[in-house]
């Protein structure tokens, strides 16, 4: 298993390298290019106020120095001070990160088991009515943008057809105390993620079911249940983990739309607000946070794949 530890360390270092590159790009896109002070204050700003702001943001220092200060701050957990509300970014973001994590985990926790089950079953019933129905449904849902799905749900359940569920989250209440308000945002995200996992699970399961070793298991008289659970499933899960990880990472992007749509108090809403108000430190922190999540999830997926694939363990 020494190989596995080495592998994880290598992937970790690779992930850190990607994060470092990400930080360069985030910094370049937000601070180094253009004139942030002018972007923040607008065209009507006076030279004095521009200078003051530049000083506050340390924009008068050399670019490399600015980057270095920012990066060392990041490493120490100091994301700077929000321009919009003058709070430390970390204080402002903490409850929002918790809220978003709750939403994403809830959506992931519901959609992943469901989609693995649907995908496997569709593979088993290949080309029969269940498979055809689920394939059309997943195809249709996958093609629709999140906000379209969300608006359909709102029209259907809140405003026009039925009037059962709130169209926006209750303000000032932590989401776990407002479960009724969670239903539509969660449902939108579940609908966004499920089709992909269903499809990759189905494809991967079909490939495994057509493999020689599954045929062999049947030819030595194994009951169908054993063939599926012991022989097919572990081999089909490997490729699926990667897709699940990527989808969870994109859930983080999906929340930007969903939180905006449902006025949900999370990082997505914060992202949208801070982008609009040119709140530089906030945008930088959120970008790093979301990119970091992507790197971590990919790392977890790699490790999970290694754990269900013995062949990969020795090849390391």
């Amino acid at each position: 298993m020494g190989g596995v530890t080495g592998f994880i360390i290598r992937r970790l270092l690779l992930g850190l390298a990607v994060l470092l590159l990400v930080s360069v790009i985030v910094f370049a896109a937000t601070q180094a290019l253009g004139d942030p002070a002018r972007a923040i204050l607008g065209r009507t700003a006076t030279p004095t106020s521009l200078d003051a702001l530049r000083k506050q943001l340390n924009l008068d220092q050399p670019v490399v120095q600015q980057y270095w200060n920012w990066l060392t701050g990041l490493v120490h957990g100091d994301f700077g001070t929000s321009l919009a509300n003058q709070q430390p970014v970390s204080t402002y973001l903490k409850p929002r990160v918790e809220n978003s994590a709750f939403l994403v985990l809830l959506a992931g926790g519901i959609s992943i088991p469901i989609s693995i089950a649907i995908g496997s079953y569709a593979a088993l019933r290949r080309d029969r009515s269940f498979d055809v129905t689920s394939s059309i449904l997943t195809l249709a849902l996958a093609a629709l943008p999140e906000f379209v799905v969300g608006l359909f749900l709102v029209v259907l359940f809140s405003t026009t057809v039925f009037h059962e569920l709130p169209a926006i989250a209750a303000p000032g209440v932590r989401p776990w105390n407002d479960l009724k308000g969670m239903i539509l945002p969660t449902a939108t995200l579940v609908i966004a993620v499920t089709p992909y996992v269903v499809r990759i699970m189905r494809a991967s399961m079909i490939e495994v079911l057509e493999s020689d070793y599954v045929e062999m298991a049947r030819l030595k008289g194994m009951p169908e249940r054993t063939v599926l659970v012991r022989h097919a499933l572990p081999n089909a899960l490997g490729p699926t983990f990667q897709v699940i990880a990527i989808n969870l990472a994109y859930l983080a992007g999906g929340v930007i739309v969903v939180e905006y749509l449902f006025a949900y108090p999370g990082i997505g809403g914060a992202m949208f607000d801070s982008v609009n108000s040119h709140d530089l430190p906030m945008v930088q922190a959120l970008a790093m946070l979301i990119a970091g999540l992507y790197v971590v999830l990919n790392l977890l997926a790699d490790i999970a794949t290694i754990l269900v694939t013995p062949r990969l363990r020795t090849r390391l």
Partner: protein
Amino acid sequence: MTLVADTPLTPEPEAVGPSPPTGRLLRSALGLWRTRIGITLAGAMIAVALFGPYVAPHGPSDFVGAPNSSSVGTFGTDHLGQDVLSRFLAGGRSILAISAAATLIGLVLGSIVGLVSAYARNLLDDGLMRLMDVILAFPQIMLALVALVTLGPKTWLIIVAVGGTTMPRVARVIRGAAQPIVERDFVAAADALGVPRWRILLGEVLPNVLSPLMVECSLRLTYSIGLVATLGFFGFTPNPGGADWGLMIFENRLALTVQPWGVVLPVIAIALITLGTGLLGDGVARAAAGIDRGRATE
């Protein structure tokens, strides 16, 4: 789905095998009902976008009545009192043109990066793919938002932002499809003869990844439309106040309870066209997989 955009709708085309000649692929895709429905839906929406302005009863910015009234015209008025139907008929062009241009950029750049990466197999491959990883680490919508806020909502910027974030996704798929191809002996044979590298890429490798490329084409178009629409929904369009399906939803959302048409019409249009291109992509993917599978048993 704009944001969960990294996996193909149908993973089958990853199945490695000789790609069928393009003509045969298209014919076989057209034999599937889902392709035909997809073409019909997408075609109808493109027709609305193209010819809509000519049949609209009013100009898109004409004020025809009280705001949010449902009694004026066929579908009532919007939040400013403009005719919803006329704005709807005028609002498809920009979204479709921008999405198509962005998709084209993403496909061309992505294919180049993917092919070069697969063929190089060395540090260049590693470097290019890490670079793609960095772009992939951000959700498309986030990069697009940051770019638009930093530089302002300009048409070219939306195209570059959407196309640029589409590129790494295409590059990964094309690299994946090309990797087994560059390992095949006919590429080695061309190498041994000393065929120039660019001719190997264009003449030997590219024709063999055309079917995944065609699948990507409709898939990425689907996502680009969704993404451009989402940006409009966030209020980012090159011409504020102009007619645009995404923007209509943004403007009329607050009045959803009293005058739903201003939201419902463009939502349906976006849904139908993404469904159409999605079905089309799935049809091509299925045809490619079917032909490959049929050949494997020969």
